[in-house]
């Protein structure tokens, strides 16, 4: 009702409500009312009234279906259509000349529509913009793209009010400003549902020290499935999903219909699972974040989270998938896979009980996305740099954008930047005599349309049987690690890898029981900063250990007796000898990515100081480094200046940045996703982006795309920001314990050695192991 009041006043609103609050319909209600009050008349000229934007294609389609029904029942003449990548070209063209009253689409399609010359005419009539699941968009590059698109809309259709729909978030004010930067949207908080009933699995089995399989709990998980109508089992990675699925079927004595759903599976396969679920034909689905958002998939009454939740907001979103009724509690069961994960689950429950939420503050907009947007604006028509700069800076992600950075991005779009100026193909903009920027030739607009969007898939290959069906897709980088004959689990089956033919990875069925589990990534979430703090606080409170499972409490007590448990503001570092080597284990609780970066930097330092480091391994919670000599001088070792020269020197060598650069280069249009009529394979993209990266580093180190790469790496792959925050936090609070042997707290990360790839060893060291020293004698015999 509040929503309607605001709408009639033409004001923008941000509607925050838990899933199942019927908020999507609430967002449309004012529009339906307005449209139904229109004077009836056949000769009415068609004009776009409401634009709906959703992060998921499937959600847009589902919402359209849900709208058709009431509109038809009320006998209203309101046109509702979707527009996604799947919409036929003819209909898409027609939608521009004769638009429906309501158009349901995605951020990418909005960008495309805005880049047409007739965009102004299309949006002139617009009265409302509805952005669904806005919380899922803001923290990403898609969110940057949408913010820029909304800024464009504010110019083309200043009269349109905005409606944002969001789940509960930690930063509602920022969301409101994101939605409507000029006049922040009014925030309406929906009625909170009954608090969720969450339990942590209290297993009678022995809790593992490390690992992520939660294998110990499968019988208990199976029992929980037996006792529920439909259970959703969330795991954090696709390989975990495969494994859990396999293991559950192994013990599935009742032959319960249990299905599998993750992003690598063929679309038809996924749709089949979704349809079966909606019809209530399934008892359980093992899934990854593919089912986190949006659409209702049936009568789910139990959500099981296997492995640590990693973040409270995500956990709540997943739990919300159970029971979409406000008055009943959602039921959820958390299944920690190891002892540290018990602490993480506990910390999550504590946070939920205190009604707190984690969530990253809004991100700074990517320069690569800005480059794409500038090109899009030019495709729609000539523009003045000053006006566009002001427009861009009005958005939340780009409010801090300097004129200098804007000009450099503009220069990049216009010429490629000076290192690439020699290439005709990068001259995409030119200036009119009136100093307006316009596209150099019509081909630029065509290329733009083919490359729009911010989602850069890692190069994927289709997995198929030798003479048979396609099972799904797997990262090329994973397949490159396989040799014909290797086995892996995929799509719920154990497969034998036969080789790569064209764009397919060919496989055959295998009887292997011990497959090489796919290591393909996908959905590895880092532990949220907020939750990490919760774990540290929990460790520092021995009086609360009684609430933990006895095995875990015992573990921590022995740690206190054998070593020490750090205070919440301290960083504990233990050193001890073992097997002729010196180990150093640190417990920053900052997530695997940050620990890996820290490990790389620390080994460099140790090497320089003559401690002869040999390697390291990083887990979500800790970092273990081993060396020939015992490391000393922890305060100096963990000093903040680590992020200066050491970081620069490492970055110059690491191939990790190249991966980040590839994404940036695709988004910024430096490398094309595909040429008209031909799809460029991932391998080609990687090939040329690596080369361009090297060239830019050497010849134009201040190129705007390198700057964008650095910004991405700092928050993403390398998590440098978090390493920096941690080093600052622990300064003067380092607690170093020298022990004569491994401590209980160190055991989990020590067990990872051998399972996880060891870092810090140079290619040459390994190569030397493979080389044979007798080669000279051998050849001399010839």
């Amino acid at each position, binding site marked *: 009702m509040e929503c309607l009041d605001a709408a009639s006043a033409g004001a923008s609103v941000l509607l925050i409500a838990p899933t199942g609050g019927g908020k999507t319909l609430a967002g449309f209600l004012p529009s339906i009312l307005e449209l139904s009050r229109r004077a009836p008349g056949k000769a009415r000229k068609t004009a776009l009234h409401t634009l709906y934007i959703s992060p998921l294609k499937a959600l847009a389609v589902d919402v359209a279906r849900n709208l058709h029904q009431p509109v038809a029942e009320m006998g209203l003449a309101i046109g509702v259509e979707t527009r996604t990548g799947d919409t036929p070209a003819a209909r898409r063209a027609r939608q521009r000349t004769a638009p429906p009253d309501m158009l349901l689409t995605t951020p990418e399609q909005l960008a495309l529509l805005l880049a047409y010359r007739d965009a102004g005419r299309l949006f002139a009539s617009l009265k409302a913009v509805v952005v669904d699941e806005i919380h899922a968009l803001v923290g990403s590059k898609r969110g940057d793209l949408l913010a820029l698109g909304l800024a464009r809309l504010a110019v083309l259709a200043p009269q349109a009010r905005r409606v944002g729909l969001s789940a509960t978030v930690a930063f509602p004010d920022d969301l409101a400003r994101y939605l409507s930067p000029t006049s922040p949207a009014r925030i309406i908080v929906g009625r909170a549902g009954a608090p969720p009933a969450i339990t942590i699995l209290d297993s009678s089995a022995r809790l593992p020290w490390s690992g992520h399989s939660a294998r110990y709990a499968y019988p208990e998980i199976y029992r929980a499935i037996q006792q529920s109508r439909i259970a959703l089992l969330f795991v954090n990675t696709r390989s975990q999903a495969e494994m859990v699925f396999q293991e559950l079927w192994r013990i599935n004595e009742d032959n319960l219909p249990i299905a599998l759903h993750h992003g690598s599976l063929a679309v038809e396969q996924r749709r089949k699972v979704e349809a079966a679920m909606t019809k209530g034909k399934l008892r359980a689905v093992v899934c990854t974040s593919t089912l986190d958002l949006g659409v209702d998939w049936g009568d789910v009454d139990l959500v099981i989270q296997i492995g640590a939740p990693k973040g409270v907001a995500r956990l709540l979103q997943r739990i919300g998938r159970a029971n979409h009724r406000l008055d009943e509690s959602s039921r959820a069961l958390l299944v920690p896979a190891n002892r540290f994960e018990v602490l993480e689950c506990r910390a999550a429950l504590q946070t939920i009980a205190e009604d707190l939420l984690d969530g990253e503050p809004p991100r700074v907009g990517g320069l690569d996305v800005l480059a794409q947007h500038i090109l899009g604006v030019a495709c729609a028509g000539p523009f003045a740099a000053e006006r566009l700069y002001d427009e861009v800076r009005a958005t939340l992600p780009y409010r801090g954008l300097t004129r200098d950075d804007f000009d450099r991005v503009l220069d990049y779009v216009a010429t490629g930047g000076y290192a690439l100026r020699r290439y005709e193909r990068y001259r995409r903009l030119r200036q009119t005599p009136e100093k307006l920027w316009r596209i150099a030739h019509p081909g630029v607009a065509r290329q733009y349309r083919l490359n729009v969007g911010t989602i850069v898939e890692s190069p994927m290959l289709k997995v198929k049987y030798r003479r048979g069906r396609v099972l799904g897709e797997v990262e090329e980088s994973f397949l490159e690690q396989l040799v*014909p004959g290797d086995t892996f689990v995929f799509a719920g089956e154990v497969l034998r890898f036969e080789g790569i033919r064209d764009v397919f990875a060919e496989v055959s069925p295998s009887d292997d029981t011990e497959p090489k589990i796919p290591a393909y990534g996908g959905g590895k979430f880092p532990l949220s900063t907020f939750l990490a703090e919760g774990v540290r606080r929990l460790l520092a409170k021995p009086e609360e250990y009684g609430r933990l499972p006895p095995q875990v409490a015992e573990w921590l007590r022995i740690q206190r007796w054998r070593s020490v448990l750090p205070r919440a503001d301290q960083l504990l570092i233990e050193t001890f000898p073992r097997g002729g080597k010196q180990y150093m284990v640190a417990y920053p609780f900052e997530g695997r990515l940050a620990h890996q970066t820290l490990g790389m930097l620390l080994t460099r330092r140790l090497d320089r100081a003559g401690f002869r480091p040999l390697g390291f391994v990083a887990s979500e919670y800790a970092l273990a480094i081993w060396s020939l000599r015992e490391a000393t001088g922890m305060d100096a070792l963990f000093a903040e200046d680590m992020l200066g020269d050491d970081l620069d020197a490492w970055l110059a060598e690491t191939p990790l940045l190249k991966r980040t650069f590839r994404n940036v280069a695709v988004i910024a249009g430096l490398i094309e996703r595909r040429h008209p009529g031909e799809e460029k394979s991932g391998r080609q993209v990687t090939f040329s982006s690596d*080369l361009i990266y090297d060239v830019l580093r050497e010849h134009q180190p201040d190129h705007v795309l390198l700057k964008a790469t650095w910004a991405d790496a700092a928050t993403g792959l390398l998590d440098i920001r978090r390493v920096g925050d941690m080093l600052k936090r622990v300064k003067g609070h380092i607690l170093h314990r020298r022990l004569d042997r491994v401590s209980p707290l160190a055991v989990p990360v020590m067990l990872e050695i051998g399972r996880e790839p060891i870092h810090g060893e140079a290619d040459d060291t390994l190569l*030397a*192991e*493979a*080389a044979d020293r007798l080669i000279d004698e051998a050849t001399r015999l*010839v």
Partner: protein
Amino acid sequence: MLVNGARLVGDISGALWWPERRTLVMADLHLEKGSAYASAGTALLPPYDTRTTLGRIEALFRRYEPKTAICLGDSFHDGKAGSRMPDDDRQRLKRLIAATEWIWIAGNHDPAPPRGLEARTTGELHLGPLRFRHVPEGRDPGEIAGHLHPKAAVRVRGRRLVHRCFVTDGIRLVMPAFGAYAGGLCVLDEAFGSLFRRNFHAWMLGERQVLPVQAARLEPI
């Protein structure tokens, strides 16, 4: 490395150094490959490949001070490479040619050197026990050839390492491509099988060292 009695050194850059004759050998420079692709509009490579390659040759010249330099064919990516080469690069290459006894071996991409960059050009060169030609034929012993751009892969403790390499069985040798943008062919490919005895070695170009790995340890790429 010992090939048909000649002691050779594989340089980390992919060049071959023959100390006894103070001779430096480089295969498949593919100069101006970047600009070739750019003008064809197919792939997208930055225009600095020639510069990078020349810089590497200059570094080798400083290090070894060779009397003779042999380019084993496919030195230029195509017939028009000479006209596309920027003037400063051209001058640098001219200086290199003037500094030594420079020999172009003709390749399939470049039967003759571009105008202005002429030097002694031949299809095949005999020097002591060695025969230099572009495409390996697998007949005469002492053959030093390029053309195939060999690469090898080996797995060590779960990590897979893929590098360019020299391939030799002590009788003949195929060199890795020297050029900045040259791709590669797996040494386990049939193209190599007919050339070498079964127990050949791949001398893999690591980060700082060139290390020999037995054929039996290699994996297909």
